[in-house]
């Protein structure tokens, strides 16, 4: 799965995550749409997003990364995944 993140661009990731959010919320969600502000989802869903990102992209989301702001939009989630993948690669 690490191979996937190294070949995926931010744009690919954003599209993939927007599609995932659309599927889960049964609503058309664009890359920059804030699913928490729109009331589409609750904090219960945030934990599912954590699990989804960790299992799909082989990253560990811990400590201060665990805040709603990291999961609001497909764009910020994509940035989080890329950042955590880079950090894991550097370690």
């Amino acid at each position, binding site marked *: 799965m690490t191979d996937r993140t190294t070949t995926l661009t931010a744009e690919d990731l954003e599209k993939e995550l927007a599609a995932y959010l659309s599927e889960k919320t049964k609503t058309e969600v664009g890359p920059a749409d804030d699913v928490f502000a729109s009331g589409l989802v609750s904090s219960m869903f945030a934990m599912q997003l954590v*699990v989804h990102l960790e299992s799909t992209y082989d990253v560990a989301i811990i400590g201060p990364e665990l*805040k709603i702001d990291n999961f609001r939009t497909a764009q910020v989630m994509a940035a989080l995944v890329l950042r955590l993948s880079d950090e894991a690669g550097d370690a």
Partner: protein
Amino acid sequence: MPETAVLDDRALIGDLIGDRAEEWDLTGELPVGLLRDLGARGLLCAEVPEAFGGLGLDSRESGELTAYVGSLCSSTRSIMTSHGMAAWMVSRFGDRAQRKGYLTELTSGQLAAVGFSEPGAGSDLGAMRTEIRRDGDDVVVTGEKKWVTGARYADQLMILGRMGEAGGVVAVPVTAPGVELVPISTPVLGCRAAGHWHVRLNEVRLPADHLLGGGGQDLSMLFTTALAYGRISVAWGCTGIVRACLRAATEHAREREQFGKPIGEHQLVARHLADLLVAEQVATRVCEHASAAWQSFSPDMVIATVLAKHVSAGHAADAAATAVQVLGSAGATDGHVVARAYRDAKLMELIEGSNEICQLILAGHALSQPQGTRS
């Protein structure tokens, strides 16, 4: 982990607890040496990876172990739930050094409890008052926590509090200046030996590395994540209660004779036994379903866990009432396995999300599903 090792663990737990649960229920206290022994063997948080001194069990193996302890003694199982939740919080929220440090302690005989509820805040996180404040190289905790399972025996308290708009979890040693443990003097309804005490935190000042992951996490995410472990643990523990009730009722119905035959052959009693068997199967399957979601990192794990907790707790409460009915006066003395089950199971319908809170979550899930699906 090999199957035989799990069987060895069960045999060991069976020996350690044996038939002493009744005595512990009556005196309202667990032998702390037993808890430290279980902890040092990694049995109180069995999912912690072996690299940190744990057993590295998967969710289902750990669940079956929890159910086994729950079938013997729900007070000990409550300690397992709290201690396991503390370890899970360290794994999820802690940084690398904290994970290594605390998880090693929690598999070495040190005991941990978790502080959520407050005088004015149960399910309503918005009402939480406990404050965690950074002050230079220190962190300062002030507040009050109620009904902290295992606080009586704990070395460390994982305290959830607010940090401005966000939240945090601080590992507070009970020996830290400003920590006050307040016993509940009246015997509690269930899990009487689980050491539920109140905790007061009066400007407790600690080095900042006691704040898991540096704090500042989302309060509701902290709460939901921590509770997910508590809920699946309680769910399996309730399955254990149902198993104990099934066993006690069938043994009694086989041996006790009235009107010239074992009471299990009287149809109205037989129906109770069928109900107990159904309860045991349903509770087991719903827990297995939730554990499978944990093991596959499925996005459905949160809802599957709430479902398992709600279904298992309800079946445990019903099964306990049924078992008391079948045993009659034989099970109606305090401390008896079915009498304990009756009190313990009722408590399980209140904690880690009451029946009503679970129903609200499940109803919300049902409403969020598009028409024509049933996932």
